[in-house]
C-alpha cells in the first residue's frame, strides 16, 4: 500500500446470522394485546340491494309464420322461454304443413321477459349485414329460399319462401347467426357450413307434411 493514501472506513452490514439478545419475555403481553386490538376493527357490512340489470338483449320468443300462397290457414311455429337460460324448459310448438304447397315465411323475435315486450327483430334488421337466418330441415322435400337482402345484396332470412313436397314428418331448425361470413362459399345459398360467427338462436321444431 502506498504511503500516500486516503483511508476510508466502511462499515458493512451483512446478514448471516442473528445473535440474540437479553430482555425478552416481559414485552410479549404488550405485543399480543396490540394484535388483538387490531382485530376489533371489524365492522359488520351489508351490501345494498343491487340494481337488477335490464336484460334487453335477451330473446325469449321466436315465431315463424307460414302463410300459404293462394290462401288458407296461417301456420305458426313458436318457441317461448320467458325465464331465459336455465329455469323452466322452453315451450315449443310445431306445425302441420300441407304437401306440395308454397308458403310465405316471416320471422318474428321478441323479448317478452320484461313488462313491455321488446321487438328484437328490429335490431336484427337494423344490422342486417351482420346477421343471417339459416333454415335446415331433415326432409329433403322441404325447401326454403331467401326473400330479402341486406345492403350488400346478401340474404338476411327474415322473409322466406318455403315449399313442401310429398307427405312426411321431420324437423325444421332455425338458426340466427351473428357476424357470419356471408361471402364464404355456399352461405348466401343458405348453407351454414362455412358461415362461422356465433349462434344467437338455434331452435328445432317438429313438422308434419300432410
Amino acid at each position, binding site marked *: 500500500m502506498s504511503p500516500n493514501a*486516503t483511508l476510508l*472506513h466502511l462499515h458493512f452490514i451483512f*446478514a448471516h446470522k442473528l445473535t440474540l439478545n437479553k430482555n*425478552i419475555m416481559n414485552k410479549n403481553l404488550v405485543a399480543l394485546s396490540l*394484535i388483538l386490538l387490531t382485530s376489533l376493527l*371489524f365492522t359488520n357490512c351489508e351490501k345494498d340491494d343491487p340494481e337488477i340489470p335490464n336484460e334487453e338483449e335477451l330473446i325469449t320468443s*321466436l315465431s315463424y309464420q307460414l302463410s300459404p300462397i293462394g290462401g288458407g290457414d296461417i301456420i305458426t311455429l313458436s318457441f317461448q322461454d320467458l325465464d331465459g337460460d336455465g329455469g323452466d324448459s*322452453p315451450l315449443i310448438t310445431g306445425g302441420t304443413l300441407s304437401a306440395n304447397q308454397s308458403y310465405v315465411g316471416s320471422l318474428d323475435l321478441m323479448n317478452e321477459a320484461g313488462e313491455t315486450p321488446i321487438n328484437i327483430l328490429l335490431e336484427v334488421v337494423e344490422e342486417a349485414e351482420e346477421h343471417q337466418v339459416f333454415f335446415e330441415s331433415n326432409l329433403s322435400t322441404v325447401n326454403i329460399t331467401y326473400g330479402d337482402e341486406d345492403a350488400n345484396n346478401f340474404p338476411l332470412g327474415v322473409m322466406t319462401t318455403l315449399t313442401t313436397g310429398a307427405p312426411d314428418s321431420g324437423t325444421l331448425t332455425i338458426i340466427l347467426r351473428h357476424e357470419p361470413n356471408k361471402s364464404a362459399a355456399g352461405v348466401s345459398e343458405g348453407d351454414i357450413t362455412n358461415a362461422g360467427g356465433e349462434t*344467437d338462436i338455434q331452435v328445432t321444431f317438429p313438422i308434419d307434411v300432410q
Partner: protein
Amino acid sequence: MFNNKFIFCLTFFLAVFNGAAQDCKLNISGQVIDEGTGLPLSYVNVLIREISNGTNTDDTGNFSFNNICEGEYHLIFSHIGCDSKEFHFDLLEDTFLNVILTHTSTSLEGVVIQGKKDNQNNQPNSSVNRQAIEDNTNQNLAGLLENQEGVHLIKNGSGISKPVVHGLYGNRLTILNNGIAQSGQQWGNDHSPEIDPFSADKIIVLKGANAIEFGSGNLGAVVLVEPKKIGREPHLHGQINYAYETNGRGNSLNARLERYTSLFAWRVNGTLKKYGDRKTASYFLNNTGLEEANLSFQLEKSWDEKVFFDFYASTFNTRLGVLRGSHIGNLTDLDQALNREIPFFTEPTFSYKIEAPKQHVSHHLVKFKTKYYYDESQTFDFVVAGQLNNRKEFDVRRSGRTDIPALHIAQTTSNIELKYTQQLKSEWKLKVGNQQIITDNTNNPETGILPLIPDYFSYKAGQFATVSKRLKNIDFNFGIRYDYELQNVVTISRGIESEIIRYKNQFHNINGLVSTKFDISKAQSISWNIGYATRNPGINELYSNGLHQGVSGIEEGDINLNTETALKNTLEYKWTPNANFSFNTLLYHQLFNDYIFLNPQDEIRQTIRGFFPVFTYEQSNATIYGLDISAQFTIRRSLFGLLKYSYLKGTNTEEDLPLVFMPPNNVYGSIVYRAEKLITLNSIQLEDTEIELNNKYVFSQNNLLASQDFVLPPSAYNLLGLKLSTNLISSHYKIRCFVEANNLFNVAYRDYLNRQRYFADDIGLSLTFGINYKF
C-alpha cells in the same frame, strides 16, 4: 448505530495525503474484517461497477485495484449467501478502505433480509431474480415463472396467463404483491394476475405446505412478488429496458429511477407494452393484441434506525384482445370450431387492433408499511393497504351493445396487518400476527346481463403464530393459524320475476404446519414439510349462475358446498457434492377431502341459442402427487447444463377418475456456454457473453378419459429455444443486449392448459431483441 457510523466514516477521511494524482494511476485497496470475530474475511467479491473490474479478498482479507482513473465509482461487495451491497465514492487519490462486515442483530437492514430467509428456510422454493426479469422484458408475471420446476401456466391465448403450482391455481394459490395478497377476480381461468413483474426484483414460488403467515386459502403454494430496498445511493440511478418481439410485433418498454437522499429514498417504475396479433406456425391469431401501461412509486424513510416507513403505490392497466374465433355461441358452434383446422375470422393480415371480445382491466394498490424495532430482539410490522380492481369484459353483441361491457365488476379490498417478531433465547424465534381483509365486490348493472358472480361483501380475520428454532444442523418450524370469514352475498335469481336473495355465511379455517430441515453433511440436506389447511368455498363456487361465454357452458354454483381440507406433504433432498454438480428432488403428496371442482353434468340445457353443457361445482375426495427433479452441472470450465423434470398426477379418489385440467408432465433442458474472457471488438468489449440452447418437451396429458373433455388432449410437443446475451462495454457505458428465439422450428402445437387450444394452435416462431441500460 452502525449505519450512522458508516455515514460518518464515509464523510470524513481519516488521513489525507497529497498523492501523485495523475490520471489513471490511482490505487484502491482495502481489507475486509469480520466484525464479530475481528478476523479478516476472505473470498468477499469486490467489483468496481464502472470499469467492470472485480477481485476477491485474499486469505488476509485484502484486495486491491491498480491503475484506476480519477472519478466517481461504485464498489460492489458480495459474500456467499448475502445480497450484494453497493457503495459510491469519489476517487481523488490512492485510497485504502477498511471494510467491516457485521453479523449482528444491530444491523437493521440485515434483520429484514434475515427475516425473509428464515421463514422460507425449510420450504421448497424456487425464484426468479432481477436479471431474469430484465432478460424477459416481453413476459408477463406468469410467463416469467413458466420454467420454474413444478410451475405451469393456464393460458387463454397468449396474453392471458396465470401460474399453476403443483396443480393448484386460482382460489387455491395466493399471490402476494409487495406483501399484499393480490385481490381481484382470481377465480377466473381467463383472468391474469394484474401485476407488473418489472416492479419486482425477485419473484419467489414457495411450494411447501402452506406458508402460515401469508394468509389462508393457499392450500399449498404462495407466489411472492417483491421489490428490493432502495440502495443507499446519493446519485440518481436507473435503468431502461426495451424489447421487441417479432411475433405480435410487440414492444415493451420499462424505465426505473431511484435515489437515496438524506430525507427519504424513492423509486419510480413505469412499463408500457403494445402487442398486435400473434401468429401460429402458419396463420395469424386475430384480435390477440394487448396494451399495457403500469406505474409504481416507492418511498422509504427511516428514523433513528428504529422506525422504517415504506410507502408503495402502483397502477396496472391493460387491454387484452381474445381470439375472435374463440368467441362462439352454443355447443353446435363449439363443435364446428373444434373441427376446423384454422379458426373462423382468421385474416391474412396483421393488426394492432383490439376489438370485442376483449378485457379492460385496471388494478391499483396503495400500501403503507411501518416496521418498528422496539428493541434488539423485538420488531413490529404494521401494514395498511387498499386495492381497487376494475374488470370489464366485452363480447360481440347486437345493436351497438358491443361497446357496453358484458361483465363489469369493481372490487375494493382493504388489508390491515400487524405482525410481531421476537428473538428468544437459544435461537428460538417467535412470530405472531393478525391479518384482516375486507372485500367489497359490486357488479355494474350497465351490462344488461345478469351477473355470473354476485355482489358480495366479505370480511376475513386471521391470527397466526409461528415458532422456529435453529439447532446445529436442524432447522425446525412450527406454525398454526386460524381464520374467520364472513360473507354477505346478494344474488339475483333467474326467472320470469327476478328476485334478490341474500345469504350470510360464516366460516372457520384452520391451518397448521410443521417443517424441518436436516443438514446431513455440507453437501446434502433433506427437508420435510407437512401442512394441514382448510379452505371455505369461494363466492364463485357457491353462487356462480349463468353462461360463461368463454367456455360456452352454463356454470352453476352450489350453496351447500362444504369447506375443503387438504393435507400436503413435501420431501426435498438436495445434494451438492462439489461445485460442478448439484441435484435437487422434491416429492409432494396432497390429500384433499371435499375437493371443490367444476364437474360437467349429463344434462344438456336447451335455450333459445341452442344447447349448452351444464357444469356444476361439486365436491369429492382427491389426491395430487408428483415429483420435481432438477440437476445442474458444469460440463467444462465454461459449459453448463441444466435438466428438469416434472411429474404430476391428480385423481378423484371417490369416483376413481382423473382430475381435469391438471398440468401434463414435462422435461426441460438447457446448455449454456459462457465466454470466460472479455471479447474485444474495436473499442467495445463484450462481457459475460452467453449462448444458451434450451429444449422443452411436454408430454400429452394421458391421465384423462375421453369423456372428460370436448376433444382429446393435444399431443406431446417439443420446443427448441436459443438465446444470446452479452454486456457491451465501452469507456462510457455498459449495455446488456440479448436475442432470444422461441419455438425455433416454428412447430404447430397446442397446449393442454391453454384454453385457446379448442380453436387454434399456439404461438409459432418468435424472435425477441432486448437491450438494458443501467446508470
